[in-house]
């Protein structure tokens, strides 16, 4: 045990210099104005899902947190850090309680996607791809995970036709430097070697914003994004 620790440290230091010495871009995504109110979802047609929710769930097109924080924003490096290889671990997208968990996933082109049905009802997973191949697969309860890949970068809207309120997004990117904002609105893109980068923030309803950042060494650059809420 004791002998192996320095070995691992040395291994990390030799294999991943960026991990040790890279720069970081981090910040927060907020909104201004008044976001449109989300609609309550009526799941009474699917009792096995309805009973999983003590309080009615709402649509997730716009999810906000305290202090005008905007959630479900994909912040990624759109120029300067295209990496050729997809990470080997899969990204999981779960259908539970007739909702997509999480609402937005990001994955690298060629990276494996695992779609899990944790419900006692059939779902059909229908990514409405326009650049990639559009497919549509049934997944009854207890079926094995669906494994798929996407070749081209694209923001793909995903739906279940059986349960029309179910809606999510696959953000297929050319980079694995991405971060999706949660309930504190924060994002962090670590391990960036020195260079010039374009950072893009994408939200399914509010669109995209970009900012350029230059990383010179082992530093943390702070940038924030602010979206204007649509009134409708």
């Amino acid at each position: 045990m004791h002998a192996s620790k320095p070995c691992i440290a040395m291994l990390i230091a030799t294999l991943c210099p960026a991990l040790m010495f890279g720069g970081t871009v981090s910040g927060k995504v907020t909104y201004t104005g008044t976001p449109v109110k989300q609609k309550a979802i009526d799941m009474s047609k699917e009792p096995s899902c309805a009973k999983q929710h003590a309080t009615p769930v709402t649509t997730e097109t716009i999810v906000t947190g305290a202090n005008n924080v905007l959630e479900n924003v994909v912040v990624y490096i759109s120029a300067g850090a295209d990496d050729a290889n997809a990470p080997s671990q899969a990204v999981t997208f779960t259908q539970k309680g007739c909702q997509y968990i999480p609402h937005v996933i990001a994955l690298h082109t060629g990276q494996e996607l695992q779609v899990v049905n944790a419900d006692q009802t059939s779902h059909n997973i229908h990514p409405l791809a326009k650049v990639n191949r559009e497919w549509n697969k049934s997944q009854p309860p207890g079926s094995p995970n669906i494994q798929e890949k996407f070749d081209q970068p694209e923001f793909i809207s995903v739906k279940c036709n059986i349960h029309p309120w179910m809606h999510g997004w696959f953000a297929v990117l050319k980079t694995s430097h991405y971060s999706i904002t949660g309930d504190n609105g924060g994002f962090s893109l670590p391990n960036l070697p020195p260079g010039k980068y374009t950072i893009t923030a994408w939200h399914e309803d509010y669109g995209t914003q970009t900012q350029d950042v230059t990383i010179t060494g082992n530093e943390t650059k702070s940038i924030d994004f602010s979206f204007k809420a649509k009134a409708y």
Partner: protein
Amino acid sequence: MSKLSQKHLFSAILTFILAAGLGAAKAQDAPDVGPHPSGPEKHMESHIGNLTGHSENAKMDYRRYCAGCHGDLGDGQGENTPWLDPKPRNFTLATFKCRSTLTGTLPTDDDLFNTIGRGLTNSNMPIWNTFTKQQRADLVAYIKTFSPRWEKEKAGDPIKIPAEPPVTIESISHGKALFTKLECWKCHGPQGKGDGPSAATLTDSQDNPIRPYNFAGGKDDSRFKCGSTNADIYKIFITGVDGTPMPSFADVIQPNDAWDLVHFLRTLQVNRHSKENDVLKAAGGKIPAYVEKSEVPASQTENRAAGGTN
């Protein structure tokens, strides 16, 4: 005539000859584009049996017979499109309903060739049997010029359809159990009338409303979009109908189970004479409840375990 005017005349003639020559050359170079912008200039081929289709040969046919709905650019935005439901196919997306290939893959040349010849019932796409086979093959090639996917990808492999087992009351009964278990009824309705709980909310991939198939309507098979044999119905739920809410069940149904489902679906066509309805009638007109074999629950637990792990 003065020397000067002679010179003038000479240069005028020379200019005229040159201009006429250039004009002629220009007329030869310019393609006959007509009043509309011409389609893509790519060359594509199709192979149907021993026929080879060439896209450039279909240009005039496409413009005369197809562009009114599918549009000059193949984007499904022809001048008739606002009045059509379902909407004409947008060839630039290369997503097709009737395929022999798995969901997400390109159809074979034969699939497109058959669709042109068969037409699409319940839509404004007629049966184009007025075309020769060569014309249809050329049109298949032409359709492939509208999306770059045809240059980058190969068509999917046609699915294998095993020989159909005999129709028995057991296969119908098992088919009914699958219809319930796979939740086909959520859209198609418990009696296959296209009135399931999700039916009213369905939209196609372009967000246009779309109805699930009503098995019970009509007396014949004429309303099946992608062919009306038992094998064609088998094909539909294995391949899915891309661009619509109908998913593929390829990963979740075994070949023999799929045939049982076909046999049951035939009994939903209550007004149609079929071997399935004959078998059902001989069995007293009622589908007995399916009794699961002992190994079925075991394999279900196995699947569930596999589904829970990553």
